[in-house]
């Protein structure tokens, strides 16, 4: 499974988010391929799930990406990420 973190520049906050997600997945015992990129590139990247900030929600609607998306209020909050990620991982049968 591949999870993609997205922000405007694809450098700072998406990367910070990725490192937090990595920690959460480790705790949950799930193995996944993680990467981060900018909004323009997100459309052409293959992923099973996209994680991004709430402020990007409307832009993703415009891009019409089919990949499931989760939008976060706080990009580096372990609890929020765990809470929002768990239903998706359960659905995929990973936990």
């Amino acid at each position: 499974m591949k999870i993609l973190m997205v922000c405007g520049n694809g450098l700072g906050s998406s990367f910070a988010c990725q490192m937090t997600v990595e920690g959460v997945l480790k705790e949950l015992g799930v193995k996944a391929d993680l990467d981060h990129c900018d909004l323009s590139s997100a459309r052409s990247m293959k992923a099973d799930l996209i994680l991004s900030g709430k402020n990007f929600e409307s832009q993703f609607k415009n891009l019409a990406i089919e990949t499931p998306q989760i939008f976060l209020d706080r990009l580096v909050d372990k609890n929020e990420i765990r809470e929002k990620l768990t239903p998706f991982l359960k659905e995929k049968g990973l936990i």
Partner: protein
Amino acid sequence: MEVINFIVDNILTQAPITIGLIALLGLVLQRKSVGQTISGTFKTILGFMVLSAGSAVIVQALTFFGAIFTKGYGMQGLVPSIEAINGQAMNELGLGSEIALTLGAIFIVNIIIARFTKWKYIFLTGQALLWMSTICAVFGYYCGLRGAALIVVGGVVGGIFAVAMPAIAQPFVRKITGNDDIALGHFCTVGYVLTALVSKLFGGKSKSTEELNLPKGLEFLQDTYLSIGVVMIPLFIITAFFAGPEFCAKYAGNTNYIVYAFLQAIQFVVGVYVLLAGVRLLLAELVPAFRGIAMKIVPDAVPALDCPVLFPYAPNAVIIGFVSTTIGSVIGMFLFPMFGLPMILPGMMTNFFAGGCAGIFGNAAGGTRGAIISGIIHGLFITLLPALLSPMLADIGFINATCTDVDTIVCGLFYGWLLKPLLGLF
């Protein structure tokens, strides 16, 4: 002796290899598997060389733009782009290895300060550290420092900035996020603190921006490449129009000069895109290694993160900060040349990210009215500082570009105004 000469000439002065070795060291210290170590080292070197390739593209587009701007308006206009400064420092000035080693030194000094003082900030915004190490290396060189002295001074100065900037922002960040879990690691902090203070003065107890209903139309500017394009395309086309078809033909050949200008504007965006893709590859191994090592040595570390981490806390303030900063930077563009300073064109990427974050600070300190007034002041401030730094950059040999992030500029001014005269005494 020959062996040492070989190492110095072919390894330590070859920037991609130097940075690869730093990554290798980080990976080994983390006890990664052989496969991960090889792939991580390779990707870091790859990233560094992609970055150089992007910079060459930027320089080409900027050379064209500089020529038509001078011809069209009879004056020099500088594009604020820290990416272009970084690229030129690595390619034209050949300071790549110094920059890479200074980056490593900043990591070390940051960890030492966080370990032994009460300021527990670990600066994790890799690209900001890369820009900071660029400025430290460039201005250290300008001051006459060479070799180990340049790297040690750069590491100490940059390392102090990496802790001091999150520390001065923290009272406001605490107010915004409601806790001390994260800090702000973005080298535009001097501007944010100024914005917050101005906002406090003028805003009083005005209503928070988040109670407003704002149009969502400007959100697309969060997309970096779109926001650069939105400004660069009209700027190139209008400038080419004033420069005239005969002058542009030198560059455009048989292509229509307006079409050529349009394509060159996009070429500039391409350069930034490639350069940042290189930065992403370059940092993918370095930042987690730095984080892993730092967290082991400084158990109660507070990570200082990139500014968009704060954006979801006050999305309206981001838009207001962006618009008011842009207004301020446009006023500054026309105002400062009257005082004999060079004309600084508005840098939309900085206006969005730094302006947006300034809006959040302004709102936290003085509500909507405060955010608007202080945003305009912020726009003037981030136009004034690059203008002050640009004569020194021109001295060093940079083409048509100046720095953006104000903390890196303050660092440059510190080198140029204080360190250089001091070193001149000896």
